[in-house]
């Protein structure tokens, strides 16, 4: 006989029932279990199964005991609490909670809309910046085991992943830690496909094991293999990207085996890379890969044979089990023989030796891709992430305040529920469900905002010097981030109010009646602390925005030495046009005359290097007659320019003359110096007529001195610069500069016609204005300034709304007190002063907290600033003033309302 009664009695023990009652219950329940048991047996269950099924009826001992306790105790409480038995299962009443939360939110549409919108802005901003950060910094390359990839970098000032062929060979043959070391080099390839116009595509020379080391397999065809990459007998093959395959071949599989003429060398397309692989560099795409061994065919003189020319990007794959530190130590061991010594062998003088000692090797993980973009944007993006995080924090503080106020008005409801036996935990769960629901609504709207936001940010990035090609569609990672963020925010702003609300004093709450619940001083203190925090954070953001805006202004007002407006830059590419250098010279002279004859063109000229394009040339220069000692022989920036170049850019001629048409390849060589060079080389002496040695034995006469202007980029110190006449060099440059009388874009069609007329068939490689070329340098600053000022404005607005809300509430609560004061003779002015004084207190407290924080956080922005320090007093004072003004404005309305309290009405208030 099965002893059900023992089981049941065991479960009832804790109830301590009267023995007779317990026996009765035990008998009834055991009868039930016996019935269940017999039935199970009848249905074909084994005795064991039947026994288990019957026992399962008892559920947990706890449940039975608890349920019975309610009934059997002498004064049974009648719970009307929502979902009263939730302890058994965590999510039991969740649906109920959600429904209730929805009802509560719908009951206060105003509150809900404001709260959800605040959250949408806060969460949206975070998602947008995260998406961008994810794309630039966090995403892994679509290759096999990306975490094994490392890139070596040579540090001399900045860190560069560029090495010579010789260094690459040295490392590749002698390293112990890598299972593979691959090299690649970016190049703009001049490509001709049969039946299409010639074009330049982003190409890359890669070593034969490039794809096999990365573990990238072809979409169709095959990849480049070590067999293709033999210098003695290179295979003329190419692999194209998925994008190029679509663009040029319409995804036709017949593209395989087609011929593509790259830099005048016919290559056969043997494969298409998978769609997700577009090279190792984040933010840029490669369309065509060719074996490194074909480089000497396409490029003469070859970089491969040029000793010391650093043109290869290296990426290594660590052997399994090798740590980054081990790989670093291993490569570092070879750093001197591979890189430093060959480099020093090419340079002379003690200065070079000294520099060589400073060179270091850095080995970094490369699983997220090589990215100059990452270098450039990691800091600004981190700063932006902090900014949007702070904005969200302010939003949370605001919502917490709103909820506190609401909890006060819902005090009675909460008190009734507590009085009816709702557990505190249960109540907190209910309140948090509401917060969570609100957060999720905000997050959903935020994702939409983020979608637009990220696209817009990308457009700004794309106007930069190197077009940034990123995929910023919010993906699952961004969605997970947003979901986590919304839960976190819900806890952040919901928990404190929920804890506070559920701790209310029942008797007091119920006594106050319908008016609501006064939580006394502690609620006030909490909401005031939140206001103080909001003001402090707003100030940090304001100061940050101020710093970035002033940086942008400083950059804008840099004297570049030339006049950036109204200049059009046009790049012609004579390389594949079939023009001989002499022919190019004549054509360009004629073209310049033609362009200058266009109405609306003031002057035109050309140069080898365009202004502030990020690249340049240099030569060793010394004074003729002086022994070439370390001081006299210097590496100097040079540029080859045509007559009227300085006039066209607006660089003043300080002494001597400009180049002219009488300077020809056969006439004596002439040079023009910038002022810095004249001062460095000649001091106070007149440089005109002096002779200078350029390179080894090219002696030229100084004919003029021009004003200093920026050469490489916007943010640089002026360095000595030497100008040579481009028409006295073997091949003239192709960088045309055209100064228009008005909008330079207006003359583009006429310029194109002249080009067509004088140099038919020559490719126009690039057309842009000088102004946009300058602006491209400060894209990052523009982005940061724009976003930080938007976000700080937003933060300030949210904080002001919060301040307004809390003060309005305070004034409403204190109507009676104010009434009494006024009845006793206080003037409206006094009342207003009283309220404003309170505001001022809060604001000053916030500012006192915010200033040191701003100073501390400001330190991290130091290298993003230009022309000012993070502790710039003007910016900080301005931030304080703005915050103070906004806070007083926000407080003015409630203060005014307080001053207009009618004592009679106020005293009747209760």
């Amino acid at each position, binding site marked *: 006989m099965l002893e059900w009664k023992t089981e049941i009695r065991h479960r009832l023990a804790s109830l301590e029932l009267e023995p007779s009652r317990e026996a009765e*219950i035990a008998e*009834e*329940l055991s*009868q*039930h*279990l*016996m*019935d*269940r048991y017999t039935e199970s047996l009848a249905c074909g269950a084994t005795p064991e199964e039947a026994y288990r099924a019957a026992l*399962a*009826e*008892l*559920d*947990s001992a706890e*449940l*039975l005991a608890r*349920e*019975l306790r*309610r*009934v*059997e105790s002498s004064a*049974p409480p009648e719970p*009307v609490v929502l979902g009263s038995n939730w302890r058994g299962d965590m999510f039991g009443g969740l649906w109920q909670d959600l429904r209730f939360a929805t009802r509560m939110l719908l009951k206060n549409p105003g509150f809900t809309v404001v709260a959800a919108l605040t959250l949408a802005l806060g969460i949206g901003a975070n998602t947008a910046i995260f998406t961008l950060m994810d794309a630039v910094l966090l995403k892994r390359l679509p290759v096999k085991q990306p975490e094994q990839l490392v890139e070596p970098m040579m540090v001399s000032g900045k860190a560069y992943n560029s090495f010579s062929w010789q260094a690459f060979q040295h490392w590749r043959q002698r390293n112990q830690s890598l299972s593979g070391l691959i090299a690649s080099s970016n190049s703009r390839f001049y490509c001709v496909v049969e039946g299409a116009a010639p074009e330049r595509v982003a190409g890359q020379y890669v070593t034969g094991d490039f794809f096999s080391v990365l573990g990238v397999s072809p979409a169709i065809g095959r990849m480049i293999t070590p067999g293709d990459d033999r210098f003695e007998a290179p295979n003329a093959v190419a692999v194209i990207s998925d994008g190029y395959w679509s663009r040029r071949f319409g995804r036709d599989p017949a593209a395989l085996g087609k011929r593509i003429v790259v830099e005048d060398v016919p290559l056969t397309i043997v494969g298409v890379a998978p769609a997700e692989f577009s090279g190792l560099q984040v933010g840029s795409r490669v369309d065509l890969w060719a074996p490194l061994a074909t480089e000497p065919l396409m490029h003469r003189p070859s970089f491969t044979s040029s000793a010391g020319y650093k043109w290869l990007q290296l990426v290594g794959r660590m052997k399994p089990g090798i740590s980054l530190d081990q790989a670093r130590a291993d490569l570092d061991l070879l750093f001197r023989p591979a890189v430093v010594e060959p480099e020093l062998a090419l340079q002379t003088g003690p200065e070079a030796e000294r520099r060589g000692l400073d060179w270091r090797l850095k080995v970094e993980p490369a699983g997220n891709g090589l990215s100059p973009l990452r270098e450039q944007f990691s800091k600004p993006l981190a700063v932006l992430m902090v900014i949007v995080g702070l904005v969200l924090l302010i939003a949370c503080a605001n919502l917490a305040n709103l909820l506190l106020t609401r909890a006060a008005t819902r005090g009675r409801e909460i008190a009734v529920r507590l009085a009816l036996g709702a557990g505190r935990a249960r109540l907190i769960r209910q309140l948090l469900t509401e917060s969570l629901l609100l957060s999720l609504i905000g997050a959903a709207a935020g994702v939409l905002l983020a979608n637009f936001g990220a696209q817009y940010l990308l457009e700004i990035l794309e106007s930069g010097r190197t077009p940034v090609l990123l995929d910023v569609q919010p993906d699952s990672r961004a969605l997970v981030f947003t979901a986590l963020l919304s839960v976190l925010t819900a806890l952040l702003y919901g928990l404190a109010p929920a804890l506070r609300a559920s701790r209310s004093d029942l008797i007091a709450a119920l006594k106050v009646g319908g008016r609501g619940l006064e939580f006394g001083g502690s609620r006030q203190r909490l909401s005031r602390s939140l206001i103080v925090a909001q003001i402090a954070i707003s100030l940090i953001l304001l100061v940050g925005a101020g710093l970035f805006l002033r940086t942008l202004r400083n950059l804008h007002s840099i004297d570049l030495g030339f006049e950036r407006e109204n200049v059009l830059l046009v790049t012609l590419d004579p390389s594949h046009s079939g023009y001989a250098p002499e022919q190019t010279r004549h054509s360009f002279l004629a073209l310049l005359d033609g362009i200058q004859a266009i109405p609306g063109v003031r002057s035109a000229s050309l140069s080898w290097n365009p202004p502030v394009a990020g690249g340049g040339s240099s030569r060793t220069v010394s004074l003729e007659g002086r022994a070439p000692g370390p001081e006299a022989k210097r590496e100097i920036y040079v540029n080859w320019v045509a007559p009227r170049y300085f006039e066209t850019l607006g660089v003043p001629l300080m002494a001597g003359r400009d180049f002219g048409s009488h300077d020809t390849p056969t006439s004596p060589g002439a040079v023009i110096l910038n002022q810095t060079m004249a001062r460095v080389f000649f001091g106070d002496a007149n440089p005109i007529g002096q002779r200078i040695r350029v390179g080894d034995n090219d002696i030229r006469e100084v004919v003029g001195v021009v004003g200093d202007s920026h050469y490489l980029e916007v943010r640089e110190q002026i360095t000595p610069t030497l100008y040579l006449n481009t028409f006295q060099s073997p091949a003239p440059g192709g960088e045309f500069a055209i100064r228009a009388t008005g909008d330079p874009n207006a003359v583009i069609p006429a310029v194109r016609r002249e080009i067509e007329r004088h140099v038919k068939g020559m490719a126009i490689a690039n057309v842009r204005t000088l102004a946009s070329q300058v602006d491209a340098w400060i894209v990052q600053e523009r982005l940061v300034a724009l976003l930080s000022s938007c976000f700080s404005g937003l933060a300030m607005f949210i904080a002001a709304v919060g301040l307004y809300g809390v003060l309005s509430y305070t004034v409403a609560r204190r109507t009676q007190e104010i009434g009494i004061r006024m009845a006793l003779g206080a003037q409206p002015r006094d009342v207003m002063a009283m309220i404003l004084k309170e505001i001022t207190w809060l604001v000053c407290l916030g500012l006192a907290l915010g200033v040191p924080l701003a100073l501390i956080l400001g330190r991290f922005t130091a290298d993003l600033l230009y022309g000012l320090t993070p502790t710039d007093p003007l910016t900080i004072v301005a931030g304080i003033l703005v915050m103070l003004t906004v806070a007083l404005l926000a407080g003015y309305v409630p203060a005014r309302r307080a001053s207009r309290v009618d004592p009679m009405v106020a005293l009747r208030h209760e």
Partner: protein
Amino acid sequence: MKKGSAELLILSLIEARPRHGYEISKLIEARSAGALSFHVASLYPLLYRLEKRGWIKGQWVEKAGQRRRRYYKLTPEGKKTLKAQRSAWESFVAAISRITGTEHA
């Protein structure tokens, strides 16, 4: 489940004749085609509660060849409650149908 609906179920099931606990639980399970089920831990506390309120009355009955069982029957007060709860339930269902738009069968 709507509050009090479990009570309503039990009251309705014993309206026609007295039944014992196991019978009640089987009937609920069978008539709801398995959608609703009560276990010992939830059913008996509910029965005792209803009994305590005076809506139902339990009685030990012995039948030949069987162990004794406790049968529950409706009290007069229980009949009144059942009537009231039933009409409240019907108007609740009707209201819900009107809102959700399904035809009231």
